[in-house]
């Protein structure tokens, strides 16, 4: 097929959208709503992951040692992001700071420093924290491991639930969008039935017949996605501004940090959904040869 013909067929596809404006508008609104909901799901997911990761990432795992002295095994353990060896002396200084005593005083009161040497660890991925803790506990050099166990566990659970729920909603919405696009295109096909029949009799090939509908689907997807991206980003901007004064302790992801990703992924998703939906909608007429 010639380039100029392809271009003309694209024009035809856009003309189709205009010819059944009513259903185009209905489809546009439905897809925009679905994609907007998808956008909010993504925003919620991103923020929850961000918050919990922040919290969990700062989770201190304290490994108390049986006797003072660094342990190479712990420092080189897989999955450890950062470690700090704390001598009994350092621990005492810290404690004094915490209780606002002078460390001299404490040292005098406590004839012998009773504090244990320990490691303060940060793990790379909190999902693995259980495994790391049990590995540590199994080491003979280790006396006890303390971390915010309960809190960490429930946060990890929350992440999993939100992740799974988000994924489920994501698939439902994607299917809904595909269905809307496919139906719109079936309707578009019906509207142009007379023309298609004639074109076939005049010798138009299958690609010639189908191409305008693929363009139509892509355009519909792209238009709806643009609208949805605008709605999502704009409302997120408003929400961020509002939360700054009303929920100042809530560290939301900044608009700038997500803008590009939302525009890129959103438009691509619209385009791909439009294309797949249109292929699905006109699959019976899909070129076979």
């Amino acid at each position, binding site marked *: *097929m*010639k380039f*100029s*013909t392809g271009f*003309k067929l694209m024009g035809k596809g856009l003309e189709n959208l205009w010819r059944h404006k009513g259903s185009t508008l209905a489809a546009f609104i439905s897809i925009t709503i679905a994609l907007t909901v998808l956008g909010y799901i993504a925003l919620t997911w991103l923020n929850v992951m961000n918050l919990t990761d922040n919290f969990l990432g700062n989770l201190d795992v304290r490994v108390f040692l049986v006797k003072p002295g660094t342990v190479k095994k712990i420092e080189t353990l897989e999955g450890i992001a950062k470690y700090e060896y704390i001598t009994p002396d350092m621990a005492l200084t810290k404690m004094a700071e915490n209780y606002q005593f002078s460390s001299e005083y404490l040292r005098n009161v406590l004839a012998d420093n009773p504090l244990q040497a320990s490691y303060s660890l940060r793990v790379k991925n909190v999902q693995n924290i259980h495994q790391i803790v049990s590995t540590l506990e199994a080491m003979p050099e280790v006396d006890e491991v303390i971390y915010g166990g309960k809190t960490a566990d429930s946060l990890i659970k929350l992440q999993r639930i939100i992740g799974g729920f988000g994924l489920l909603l994501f698939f439902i919405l994607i299917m809904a969008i595909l269905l809307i696009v496919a139906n719109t295109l079936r309707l578009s096909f019906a509207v142009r039935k*007379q*023309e298609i029949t*004639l*074109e*076939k*009799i*005049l*010798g*138009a*090939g*299958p690609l*010639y017949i189908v191409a305008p509908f693929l363009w139509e689907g892509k355009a519909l997807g792209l238009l709806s996605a643009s609208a949805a991206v605008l709605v999502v980003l704009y409302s997120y901007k408003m929400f961020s501004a509002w939360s700054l004064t009303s929920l100042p302790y809530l560290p939301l992801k900044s608009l700038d940090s997500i803008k590009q990703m939302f525009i890129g992924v959103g438009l691509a998703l619209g385009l791909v959904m439009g294309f797949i939906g249109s292929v699905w909608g006109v699959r019976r007429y899909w*070129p*076979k*040869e």
Partner: protein
Amino acid sequence: MTQTPLVYLSGVSKAYNNNVVLRQADLVIPQGSFTFLLGHTGAGKSTLLKMISGEVKPTKGKIYVKGQDITRWSGSKKANWRRCIGYVFQEDRLLTYRTVYENVALPLEIHECSRRQIKDKVISILKVLGIGSKAYAYPDELSGGEKQRVSLARAIVANPEIIIADEPTAQLDPITAQEIFSLLSSLNQSAGISVIMATHEWELVSKTKYPSYVVRDGLLMPWEGSI
């Protein structure tokens, strides 16, 4: 050595459900010939023509185009053959929401002609058929005869190898009908385009020497001046 006929029907039968329209029809359309097809209304003329273009499938029998059986053709081969045909449909099949110009341009667009070529060809063909002033009118704004001419223009604009004309003069006054026939006849003679034309106009047919066939009671037979 004889030339392969452009179209050759061998033992073609067609029934719509239980309504048998054609029985064991044989027909040869040599390249560059002019053939008439006669028959009462409902005899099966349109059905026969549609089988030649591949729009209707025969119930039995074979249809050869340049020696190839079209009943076995794939979609793209069929599309190629159809691009060689200029079809004047009995019901004009003009797209009502497209202008005369756009309707006539359609086959050229399918042939992937350039915008410039399309413009030149469409404008000149409309002029030849005397409807140049109607280029930007919509089919609903035309008389029956004008529509028929648009339909004819669409059929001949893309230089077809064969023109299949299904009662192209049905709605025309005798003089215009004669003109249209003369046009088809001259396209046949000067450009060597094969023509097959279904018609009711026995008188017109009897004035020519072209081979003529008639469909009667499901049988296709040479016409000998009476029905």
